[in-house]
């Protein structure tokens, strides 16, 4: 919103003010102004929540009070549009010299350093390995890349922070990783930071290729549980590097209203490629890589629904999966189904899905959702309504349908991924709303 207001002021040379609810305005006038726009946009503030309210509530806010100044809201609007500029509002040009972060922290006791790391929110508030220079140097032996190589510039909340190989190695040490894990964690760094949205999203990390066995990633029993070092440290490193490199701090620029426990480990696991039914390709092969490539795939979503039931012939498992998938928002047509090898075997052997792609196509054709339920999701309102208003199909047609009409929201079967993991202990599966992006080759970071 500040970006819009700045653009209007710069290109049209007219005053442009923002209206936001109280949960957002402090971020807009603080962190965003400092690191993103450099312009002290004037705001007025309405109570939160604003969206999803009856019309009378939103209309009533106009005759209510500005949450920032306490004066009548429209008086605040008039003042924001007509009030003379302050000295602060007239400042232009280069910002004051930024405060550099020293490469080494001042020497201190372990206890004090641990306290410092927590006070700065550099940890996930579980105990970390303190990143001494010796440990980081040892970690860097896991890659041929130079420590000062910039992997990416993180600017999602502003600040244009340059994430280097050395900074990632520091996070890897803190997470408890070994040098052998570093190429995986560097590949992961290309996707940092993790999801940071008021909607409380999380990530899923899937490892494919021979490196699963080399580094002993758990793909079998308890693949998604706390029973394996590689799964644990790689997943945890994503949280740590996201927080340190992204400068993510609670109520400063991290505004996930509920947060998401999956952010602790980002659901890191390996696909059980050895247990795939014949004809079912691993995730990385389905997305265009060679079977021998070592690939990390990152997904973003919010939730999963689990069930046992593949052995019930009265209601086949893919029917249950279909039913549960109708609960998801289907943003971008995305879903990822994680299934035990026993379920994969039944889906192929009993129900005839010869490939993962056939199963994805079946879901795309058979998952239905009530139109009002689809549009009732805030993520869809934010992302798909603009498409509908622009006349893009099928969104434009869906917007005209009655509330109780059934639509097929998973329009793109290629966005529905199936991953096989687990130890053949139970006919168990998760359907999730995670959208998986194209994978990253791990060997590029060796």
């Amino acid at each position, binding site marked *: 919103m500040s970006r819009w207001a700045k653009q209007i002021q710069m290109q*049209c040379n007219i005053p442009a003010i*923002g209206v936001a609810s109280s949960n957002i305005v402090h971020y807009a006038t603080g962190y965003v102004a400092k690191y993103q726009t450099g312009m002290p*946009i004037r705001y007025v503030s309405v109570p939160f929540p604003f*969206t999803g309210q009856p019309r009378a509530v939103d209309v009533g806010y106009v005759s209510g009070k500005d949450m920032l100044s306490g004066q009548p809201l429209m008086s605040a609007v008039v003042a924001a549009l007509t009030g003379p500029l302050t000295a602060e509002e007239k*400042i232009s040009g280069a910002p004051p010299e930024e405060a550099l972060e020293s*490469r080494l922290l001042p*020497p201190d006791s372990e*206890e004090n350093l641990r306290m410092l790391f927590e006070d700065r929110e550099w940890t996930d508030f579980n105990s970390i390995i303190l990143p001494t220079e010796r440990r980081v140097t040892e970690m860097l032996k896991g890659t041929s890349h130079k420590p000062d190589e910039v992997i990416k510039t993180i600017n999602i909340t502003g600040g*244009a922070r340059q994430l280097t190989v050395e900074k990632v190695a520091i996070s890897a040490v803190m997470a408890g990783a070994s040098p052998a894990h570093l190429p995986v964690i560097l590949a992961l760094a290309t996707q940092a930071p993790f999801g940071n949205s008021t909607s409380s999203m999380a990530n899923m990390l899937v490892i494919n290729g021979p490196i699963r066995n080399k580094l002993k990633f758990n793909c079998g029993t308890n693949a998604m549980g706390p029973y394996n070092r590689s799964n644990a440290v790689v997943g945890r490193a994503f949280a740590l590097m996201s927080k*340190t490199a992204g400068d993510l701090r609670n109520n400063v620029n991290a505004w996930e209203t509920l947060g998401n426990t999956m952010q602790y480990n980002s659901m890191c696991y390996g696909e059980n490629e050895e247990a795939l039914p014949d004809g079912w390709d691993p995730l990385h092969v389905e997305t265009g890589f060679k079977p021998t490539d070592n690939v990390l795939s990152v997904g973003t979503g919010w939730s999963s629904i689990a069930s046992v039931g593949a052995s019930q012939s009265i209601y086949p498992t893919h029917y249950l999966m279909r039913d549960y998938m109708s609960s998801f928002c289907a943003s971008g047509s995305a879903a990822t189904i994680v299934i035990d090898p026993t379920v994969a075997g039944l889906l192929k052997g009993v129900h005839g899905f010869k490939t993962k792609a056939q199963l994805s196509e079946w879901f795309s054709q058979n998952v239905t959702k009530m139109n009002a339920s689809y549009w009732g999701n805030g993520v869809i309102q934010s992302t798909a309504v603009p498409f509908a208003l622009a006349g893009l199909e099928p969104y434009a047609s869906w917007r005209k349908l009655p509330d109780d009409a059934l639509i097929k929201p998973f329009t793109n079967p290629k966005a529905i991924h199936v991953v096989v993991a687990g130890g053949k202990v139970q006919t168990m599966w998760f359907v999730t709303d995670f959208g998986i992006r194209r994978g990253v080759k791990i060997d590029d970071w060796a």
Partner: protein
Amino acid sequence: MLAFLGISPTLVAGSPTYARTAPKAAPEGSPANGESLITVMNPAIAGKLATRSPLAPPLDKLDGKKIYMVNLSWEGPDAANYFYGAMTEWFDKHYTGVKTIVKVTAEGMFGSDPSIIKDIIASKADAAIVGVAG
């Protein structure tokens, strides 16, 4: 007393994480509480401050002005449309000749929509209101 009521005094005092202050580094080489000192690497990355830009000149008055209201479609366009409609009524009632134009952005709150800027210029708007987030 608080403990008798089932409330932790610590809870009332605030989270210890945030109540405590950042520790001061001890002088190099000196022990802190008898512990040896260690040096660790800094995981933080300095953020680059944005180049400062001044605000555009404010209006001298509202009478007779044209105000462009940009609806960012935050979780859909309806709420902001209701809000901007009520704002328009308020301007009609309190000022003479204020005109408002409400436009929904084509790509929502995250995208860009160059047609909005072009439209603001073409319509000779005097001011803009952007929202409503939340």
